[in-house]
C-alpha cells in the first residue's frame, strides 16, 4: 500500500492542551481529536460550512505580536506569548486552525452562548419527542440535555407550520421540527447535484420546501433524513415503525454495486427495520443510495426459498446433499458462481470446482453508473471471484460457452450459486438437458427447473467479505437469524466439497480464513478478524490489465482515467 503524504501540521491550543492538526482543519474537528465535544447542528464534515446554527461557538484568541516590530509579545504573568482573546464568541465550524490559535470550548462565555442558542432553538420546537422518530438519536435532545438550561421561559404561542409534507416518494417533512440548519439543502445541491430544496418565508417563519414543480426524489434523498439533526425529515418507510433505541446495529456493505457502500443494518428480534450509511471516508463518506436501503425487504420476501427439495419434493438437507454428491461424482460438472457471493463462498466454490474438475463461471450484471455511489458493475464482489481464482477473466452477461458445452453434451450437471441461469441465457430446453443444483435464496426460473434446491442465506443473515471496485476487502456481519429451512452457504458448500472426498473445509468464516490466507496470494497473512471495519486495500497488480466496466464514482477512478491524468501532469 502507498502511504499518504504527511500533511502540513499546525499546532493549536485547545482548553490548555497543545495539539498538532493538519492545516485546514476547523476547530470542531481539532477539538474532536482531543475528545472535546463542540456541539453543532448545521456543520457537517462532508458539506460546505453554513455557520448558521451558532451552536458551535467557542472562545478564541490569537498570539499577540507587537504591531510595530512584529515581535511576539510576552505575557509577564505566564512568561509565555500573550494571547489576544476575542471578546465575542466565534463559530468553531467556520474557524480554521492557524499557528498558535487558542481555543476555549467550555468557558463561561461559551456556556452562556450555547445556553442562549439552545433556548432559542427550543422555543418554537414542538415538544413531541414521545411520538418523534428522531427521539433517541436527536441532536436537539442530546444537546438540550448537555448544554441547555433545563427550563423554559417561553409562554407565547409557538409557530405553526406544515406537519406532514411529502417532499418526495421517500421523505416526509415536519416543518415545525425543522431548525433551519440547511444541511438537507446543501446536501441536495452539493452531493446529490439535485438542487430541489430551499426555504420560503423569512425569520422564524422560514419553511423548508421543494422548489416549485420539483420533488425530492433522487436516489440519495434519504441521506437528508440521516443528516437532519432533528426529526423534521423522516423516512416515509421507517416513520412510526420502531423506537431507535430498541434496534441492534450490525455493520454491513451495500450489495447493489461494486462501490461497496458501508452501511448499518438496524434490526430487532430478527426483523430489519432500516439501513443507514456508515462513514467511510475512502468509499462512501457518509452517504448511501436510497435503492440500497430497501434491499432489506428481500429478506422477508414471499419468494424466499425455505424448503430443501429433491426433484420437486421436500426432503432433508442430508438427503439432498447426498443426491448432489452423486451428481458431482458422475463428472461433467460446470459451476456458476456469483458476483453477489462472499469471498469465502467463492473460495469454497473454487475448491468445489477444483475437486470436480469443473470450470467456474460468473454472470456479469451491468448497468450505467450514477457517478456517485452506484457503479456500472452491479455485482458487489466480482473482484472477490478474481482474487479467489474462481474466474480469471471478467464475466459476461450471458453464459455462452456453457450454453455451447451443454448443447454439445459435454456438461451433465450445473451447480448454480444464486444465479438465475435462465436470465443468464440458458434456455429452458438447455436446462432440461442437464441436472441443476441450485444453491440460493429466492425462487426463479432456475430454482423451478432445478433437480436439487438448497436454500441458503441472504447477505444480512450471514458474515463474510466483499472486494469492491477499489480492491478494498470489506466485512459484513449477520444482522438477523436465517429463516427456518435455510442453511448458511458456507455449510452447504463445505459439505459439497467434503462429499467429493478430497478434504473437509471449515464451514464458518473465522475458521475458514487461515485456509483462505494460505491458498490465496492476495489475502496472505490476513485474517477475518483483523480486517478493519473500513476495509483493507489489496494489491491489485495481477488484475490491473483487465477491462473493468466501472466509470468514475465518488472515491474511485478507473485505471485508465488515472493513467490519463498522470500522462497530463
Amino acid at each position: 500500500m502507498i502511504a499518504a503524504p504527511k500533511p502540513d501540521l499546525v499546532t493549536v491550543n485547545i482548553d490548555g492542551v497543545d495539539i498538532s492538526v493538519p492545516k485546514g482543519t476547523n476547530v470542531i474537528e481539532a477539538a474532536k481529536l482531543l475528545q472535546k465535544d463542540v456541539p453543532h447542528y448545521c456543520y457537517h464534515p462532508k458539506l460546505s460550512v453554513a455557520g448558521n446554527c451558532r451552536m458551535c461557538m467557542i472562545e478564541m484568541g490569537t498570539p499577540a505580536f507587537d504591531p510595530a516590530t512584529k515581535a511576539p509579545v510576552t505575557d509577564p504573568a505566564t512568561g509565555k506569548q500573550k494571547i489576544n482573546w476575542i471578546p465575542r464568541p466565534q463559530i468553531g465550524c467556520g474557524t480554521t486552525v492557524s499557528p498558535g490559535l487558542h481555543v476555549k470550548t467550555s468557558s463561561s462565555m461559551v456556556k452562556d452562548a450555547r445556553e442562549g442558542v439552545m433556548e432559542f432553538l427550543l422555543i418554537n420546537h414542538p415538544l413531541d419527542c414521545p411520538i418523534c422518530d428522531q427521539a433517541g438519536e436527536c441532536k436537539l435532545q442530546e444537546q438540550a440535555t448537555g448544554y441547555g438550561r433545563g427550563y423554559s421561559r417561553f409562554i407565547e404561542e409557538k409557530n405553526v407550520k406544515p406537519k406532514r409534507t411529502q417532499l418526495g416518494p421517500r421523505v416526509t417533512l415536519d416543518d415545525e421540527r425543522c431548525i433551519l440548519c440547511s444541511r438537507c439543502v446543501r446536501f441536495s445541491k452539493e452531493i446529490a447535484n439535485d438542487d430541489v430544496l430551499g426555504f420560503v418565508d423569512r425569520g422564524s417563519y422560514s419553511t423548508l420546501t421543494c422548489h416549485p414543480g420539483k420533488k425530492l426524489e433522487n436516489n440519495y434523498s434519504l441521506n437528508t433524513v440521516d443528516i437532519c439533526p432533528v426529526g423534521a425529515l423522516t423516512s416515509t418507510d421507517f416513520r412510526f415503525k420502531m423506537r431507535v433505541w430498541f434496534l441492534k446495529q450490525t455493520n454491513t456493505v451495500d450489495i447493489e454495486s461494486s462501490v461497496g457502500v458501508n452501511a448499518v443494518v438496524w434490526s430487532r428480534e430478527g426483523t430489519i427495520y432500516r439501513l443507514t450509511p456508515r462513514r467511510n471516508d475512502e468509499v462512501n463518506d457518509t452517504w448511501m443510495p436510497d435503492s440500497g436501503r430497501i434491499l432489506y425487504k428481500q429478506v422477508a420476501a414471499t419468494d424466499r426459498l425455505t424448503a430443501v427439495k429433491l426433484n420437486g419434493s421436500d426432503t432433508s438437507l442430508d438427503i439432498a446433499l447426498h443426491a448432489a454428491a452423486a451428481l458431482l461424482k458422475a463428472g461433467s460438472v460446470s459451476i456458476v458462481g456469483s458476483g453477489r457471493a462472499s469471498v469465502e463462498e467463492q473460495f469454497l466454490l473454487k475448491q468445489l470446482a477444483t475437486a470436480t474438475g469443473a470450470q467456474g463461471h460468473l454472470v456479469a450484471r451491468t448497468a450505467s453508473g450514477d457517478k456517485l455511489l452506484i457503479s456500472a458493475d452491479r455485482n458487489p464482489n466480482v473482484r472477490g471471484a478474481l482474487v479467489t481464482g474462481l474466474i480469471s477473466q471478467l464475466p459476461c452477461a450471458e453464459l455462452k460457452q456453457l450454453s455451447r458445452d451443454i448443447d454439445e453434451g459435454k456438461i451433465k450437471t450445473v451447480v448454480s450459486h444464486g444465479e438465475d441461469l435462465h436470465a443468464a441465457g440458458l434456455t429452458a430446453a438447455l436446462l432440461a438437458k442437464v441436472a441443476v443444483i441450485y444453491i440460493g435464496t429466492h425462487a426463479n426460473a432456475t430454482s423451478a427447473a432445478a433437480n436439487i434446491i438448497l436454500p441458503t442465506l441472504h447477505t444480512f443473515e450471514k458474515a463474510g467479505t466483499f472486494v469492491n471496485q477499489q480492491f478494498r476487502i470489506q466485512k459484513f456481519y449477520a444482522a438477523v437469524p436465517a429463516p427456518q429451512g435455510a442453511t448458511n452457504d458456507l455449510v452447504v458448500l463445505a459439505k459439497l466439497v467434503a462429499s467429493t472426498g478430497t478434504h473437509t473445509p471449515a464451514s464458518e468464516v473465522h475458521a475458514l480464513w487461515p485456509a483462505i490466507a494460505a491458498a490465496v496470494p492476495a489475502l496472505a497473512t490476513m485474517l477475518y478478524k483483523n480486517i478493519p471495519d473500513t476495509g483493507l486495500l489489496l494489491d491489485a497488480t495481477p488484475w490491473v490489465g483487465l477491462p473493468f466496466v466501472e466509470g468514475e464514482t465518488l472515491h474511485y477512478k478507473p485505471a485508465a482515467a488515472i493513467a490519463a491524468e498522470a500522462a497530463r501532469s
Partner: protein
Amino acid sequence: MPAPTQHRLIFQHIDEPGYSNDIDCYLRNGGYEVLKKAVAQKPEDLREEVKKSGLRGRGGAGFPCGFKWSLVDRKSGKPIYLIVNADESEPGTFKDRYIMHQDPHQLIEGTMISCFANDVKQAYIYIRGEMPEGARILEKAIAEARAQNLVGPNILGTGYSCEIFVHRGAGAYICGEETGLIESLEGKRANPRIKPPYFPAVLGLYQCPTIVNNVETLCHVKHIVQQGGAEYAKIGTPGNTGTRIFCVSGHVQRPGYYEFPAGTITMGQLLNDVCGGPLPGRTFKAVIPGGSSAKVLRFGERYKGKRKVGTDMVDYDWGVEDVPMDFDSLAMIGSMGGSGGVIVMDDSVNMVEALANINAFYQHESCGQCTPCREGSLWMKKISSRMVHGEARKEDAALLKSVADQIPGRTICAFGEACSWPTQSFLIKFKDEFEGYAEAKKNLPADRLSLV
C-alpha cells in the same frame, strides 16, 4: 450657542425651485465636469484623494471609504464590481431617496468616478424594492448619461468603458447588508454570508472583488474629486469629515432633512434650533440618533468620560442635548451615528408601545439564518406585542432584556445587533415603564390605535 448654518453639499439642489432631475438641468449646473476631470487622472491618484479626504461610509457603520477601497483584491485577475447600496431601509432614514429622486445624476457621476478610480467595468445600483419611482428615474438618468457618452463604452473618448445597471430588490431590509445584497443580486435569497471567508473586497459578487458603497457616500466622492481630498477634509471635524445629512422624524416642530458639516452640531441644536423644538405643550422624552436600530437616548441622562480633543484627553459631561452628532461622539455615549435617521419621541409616547413597534419591524426582517436573531427577534416581538395587546407581566421587562442579551455578537451579520439594541437600550433606560406597564395600561384610552 446657536446652531451652525446648513452646509448643503450633497443636498445642494434638493427642493431647489426649478431644478429637475434630467441631465440638461444637471449639465446646466456644472454636472459631469468632475467626471471629465477625473478620467484625465490616474485611478490610483483618485483613490489617494478619497483616502486623504477621510470620508466615512454613510450607510450606517461609518467605515472609512478610502480604506475599504484599499482592501480590494486588485491582483486576482478577476473583474472588480462596484455596487451602489440604494436599499435605504433603516426606519427613520430618507436621504438617499431624495438624492435619487431629485438629483440622480449626482449619484451617477459619483458612481462613474468611483468606478474609474477602481478600474470597475460594471456597476450595479441595488435599489430598494419599495422605491419603484426611484428605479424609473435612475433608469432614465442612466440612459441620458449613456446618450451623452458619460456611461457605457469608451467614455468621453478615453477608452474607458463602464456600464451601470439598476437592480430592484424585492422588499427586504436585510438586502441592505452588503453580503445579503450581493446574494440577492446574484438571484438568491438574501442570506448574509459568513466573513471570513466572504469579504466582499476579495470574494464578493460572483466571487469577484466587490466594492459596496452607500448612495450618499458615492455622491461625496464626486465632491472630494472636485475640491481635492485635503480641501474636503477641512469640512467638518477631524475624523468626521465632510457633511452629514440628518433625517429628523417624529415629535419636533419641523421634521425633515438637514445637512451640516459633520461634528459641528449638537443634538440640542439640531432638535431645538433647527427643528423648532418639541410640539406645543410637550417635552422631549427620548431620541434614537442613527436609525431605529441605534440605541435610544433618554433626555435627562448624563454621559461622562474622557475624550480625545486634538492630542489631549478632555473630560466631558454631556446631556443628550450636548452630544455632537458625529460617529465617534455618539459611539462614545453608547449609541451610534448610523444612517443619520434621528427619531424623536416626546412625553406622549409610551416606550413599551414604541418598542413593540420596533420589534415587530425587526422580527419581520430577520432572514432566518442564524438561530439567535431568527428566534430572538420573534420572541421579543411576541413578548412586547403581548404586553401591549394582551396580558403584561412585571417579569416581562427582565425577560425581554435577557432575550435581547442572547443575540448580539452571536450572528453572521449585524442584524443581530440591529434587532437587539433597541430592546436592550429601551429596557436599560426605561425599565420602570416596562415593569409598570401592566398598571399604566389600565389608564390608557380604550379606543387607542392598535399596533401592527
